[in-house]
């Protein structure tokens, strides 16, 4: 079979024969391996390879998109994509201008993690699983490890040719404790941009997670209601992603007049202390990249500066339609999907307070840590903490069952009244939007304090 590089170049040549406002193609070759445990036993172990591609065409503002595994006969594919686009199009095409790019980007890891022998990966996971199983009252464990290495070729009718490689690793460990028909669980999620070393040496964290699952069996449930809550950097990262990040994705906003009015630049969302950034150019994070899936260079974008809305994330189309600059945030999960506006690495900038300063003057509140998950409806968001503790008289007190927090973005960001100095980026997350998930992203924050946060009870 011909290499995807050759096929890409030929497609780029063939684009010239079609009458469309814009055409692009992405071709990918990927390898993955995974190991999962349920309990002491290996549940699943395997390898997969995939080769596929997609072609996207724009005619008069309408898009056609085709995806395929069979890389022969792609001329017919271009024709179909253009024909579909023509059927949709009824106005003027608008794409923010970008310069054509020719570049080759390596994965940046010394060793492709997929090629590490399964035996070596299994040895490490066995060590972690043994730690979980040594914990008294532990019923069972679930471990999921996955790695991937992908080479993607992007070509467009603008004349761009970009080859990008990326490697990715994820690890999720869950410890499950039971007693008298009660089931409680605690988890640890980690990831890295293809560096296997990043998931070594976690023995203490794994032990702590397993112990926490057991502690939860005797922990009380929180009483539902409004509390002052303090979020650790991991959960605050999920919070900033869910509560604000998604709202700054312009594909939700650009064709919705009402949302455009609400999301007008300069609008106040929080205190002067609050800065929120999305930055795909940070080196070595899971959400980082050099070019997005429309061939636009990645950038650092301030979304909120000194509490005011100052920017948002764009694809070429949303940028053009809103008269703003493209930010390089059009990302596709893989070749099966068209790129849509996504976050990369999203975080709250650190300020000056220590964690003790933040907790110190709370008479009664809840400290929440780690994540189960989070979701948003734009206005409302919920996110759930893996661990929760009462705060009494400025000190951490008893552990609580995991809690779910909810809020309204237009109110809650204003209720952040303290921001710590301890920024930490969490690499364990995957983001879902429409049907594309999990997309590698990272989120971060220092410790933050939110007043009047609604906590679900038991």
């Amino acid at each position, binding site marked *: 079979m011909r290499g995807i590089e050759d096929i890409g170049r030929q497609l780029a040549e063939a684009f010239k024969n079609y009458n469309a406002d814009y055409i692009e193609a992405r071709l990918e070759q990927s390898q993955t391996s995974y190991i999962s445990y349920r309990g002491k036993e290996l549940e699943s172990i395997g390898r997969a390879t995939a080769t596929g591609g997609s072609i996207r065409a724009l005619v008069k503002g*309408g898009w056609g998109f085709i995806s395929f595994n069979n890389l022969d006969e792609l001329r017919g594919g271009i024709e179909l994509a253009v024909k579909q686009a023509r059927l949709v199009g009824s106005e003027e095409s608008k794409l923010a201008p970008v310069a054509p790019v020719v570049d080759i980007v390596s994965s940046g890891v010394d060793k492709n993690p997929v090629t590490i022998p399964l035996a070596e990966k299994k040895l490490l996971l066995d060590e972690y699983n043994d730690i979980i199983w040594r914990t008294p009252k532990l019923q069972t464990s679930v471990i999921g490890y996955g790695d991937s290495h992908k080479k993607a070729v992007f070509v467009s009718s603008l004349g761009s040719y970009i080859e990008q490689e990326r490697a990715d690793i994820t690890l999720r460990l869950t410890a499950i404790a039971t007693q008298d028909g009660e089931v409680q669980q605690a988890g640890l999620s980690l990831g890295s941009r293809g560096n296997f070393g990043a998931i070594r040496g976690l023995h203490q964290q794994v032990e702590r997670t397993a112990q926490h699952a057991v502690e939860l069996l005797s922990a009380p449930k929180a009483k539902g209601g409004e509390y002052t809550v303090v979020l650790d950097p991991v959960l605050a990262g999920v919070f900033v992603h869910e509560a604000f990040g998604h709202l700054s994705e312009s594909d939700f906003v650009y064709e919705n007049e009402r949302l455009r009015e609400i999301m007008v630049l300069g609008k106040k969302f929080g205190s002067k202390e609050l800065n929120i950034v999305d930055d795909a150019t940070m080196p070595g994070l899971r959400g980082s990249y050099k070019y997005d899936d429309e061939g636009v260079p990645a950038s650092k974008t301030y979304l909120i500066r000194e509490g005011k809305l100052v920017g948002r994330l764009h694809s070429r189309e949303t940028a053009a339609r809103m008269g703003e600059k493209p930010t390089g945030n059009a990302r596709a999960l893989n070749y099966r999907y068209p790129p849509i506006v996504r976050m990369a690495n999203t975080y709250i900038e650190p300020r000056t307070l220590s964690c003790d300063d933040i907790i110190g003057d709370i008479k009664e509140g809840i400290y929440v840590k780690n994540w189960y998950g989070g979701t948003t409806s734009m206005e409302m968001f919920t996110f759930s903490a893996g661990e929760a503790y009462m705060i009494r008289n400025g000190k951490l007190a008893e552990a609580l069952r995991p809690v779910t927090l909810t809020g309204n973005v237009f109110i809650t960001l204003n209720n952040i009244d303290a921001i710590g100095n301890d920024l930490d980026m969490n690499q364990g997350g995957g983001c879902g939007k429409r049907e594309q998930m999990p997309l590698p992203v990272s989120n971060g924050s220092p410790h933050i304090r939110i007043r009047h946060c609604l906590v679900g009870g*038991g």
Partner: protein
Amino acid sequence: MENILNQAKKVAEEAEVFFVSSEETPVRFEANRLKHIEHKQSTSVALRIVRQGRIGYAVTTELDDSQSLVSSAAEVAQFGMSAKFEFPSSISYPTVEVFDPNVEPVTIEEMISLGEELITAVRGHTPDIVCEAEVVKSAISVHIINSRGGQAKYRKSFFTLGIMGSLIHDTDMLFVGESESSCHPLSESKAIAGVVLQQLELAKNRASAPSKPLPVIFTPHGVASALISPLMAAFNGKLVLEGASPIGSKLGQQVFDNKLWLWDDATLAYRPESRPCDDEGVPSQRTPLIAKGTVTNFLYDLQTGALAHARSTGNGSRSGGRLPGPSPSAFVIAPGNTTFDEMVQDIKEGLIIEQLMGAEQGNILGGDFSGNVLLGYKVESGKIVGRVKDTMVSGNVYQVLKDIIAIGSEAKWVGGFLQTPHLYCPSLSVASK
């Protein structure tokens, strides 16, 4: 495929080849107008072998590279679980109708007009609403062969029609939506539009919920968003085997209200989750899970069933291209005899939950759920008075389903994987601003 099987047999005692190909044509509307037409074609082949008693597995989209597929599976087999099962040999399958040849010929133009009709109907009622709609036709073809002479082959067609609308006033947002799917082509948008219009009507007024325990009616969507994930986990034979299911040791015991009946059913004609056999070639069946509140079965694939000394229930599923594991096909909750109106009339002060956001993020295994009422209504003195917001509802599935006041007389499909009536429960914890 035979070629892969033959090569695999040279290095392994047993082998199975699973081939799936699919074609999908989505037509998508954004901001009330047609925006994308897509066509997605995919093929993949998975090889599962038993080598020196252990399971090896590999998947690829590169159909002509059988050599690497066989060698990857052989590498994996060094670490694989020991195989406790046998591949099914030649058997006969039930007739489960899942292919309608009339889906393929539906034209893009017809799909476009369906989407337009739907949006026009909803905007005719509420001109300010911004709609996304999706009309999708697709077909998959599955072929399984194994070294014991087992062979299964089927085609399935689907058609989906759905709409999501958002209505924004200042910073207040309302989200409504409905979708329907079938193996037949859908040509009727009125019923779907009708559901959305009803949501819009009920949400017109605002009401506030107090922070205290309240009776709750879960609509079919509400059941899907709040209660089903924990049950799907609890009946999974793998979790039962590990002791992680709260009902794993309660087979034959009454755990739920005696009005509750639940089946897993992969044999319903022309339903998108139906099929003649599962992803391991085991015949599909209808498995009773809860009968009169009593736990009657768990769901198994071949390997888990063998480990648990139970038979596969035909629930082997390869999600994400991975090794088969037990997974529900479609959950069906039997209707009761109380109408929705009767439920509402019975409530002095309570809530109707249509969509609970975030309920699946908690301790699903333990049955706890807690979520923001994304779409829900307040009931006062037997009448729906308006939409509630800034409200969280929490509970535990096992407590909620132990004591049900009434089960709705009409069951409805939600998201293709659940058919359920309304459920009316006496008390749930509500926290509100």
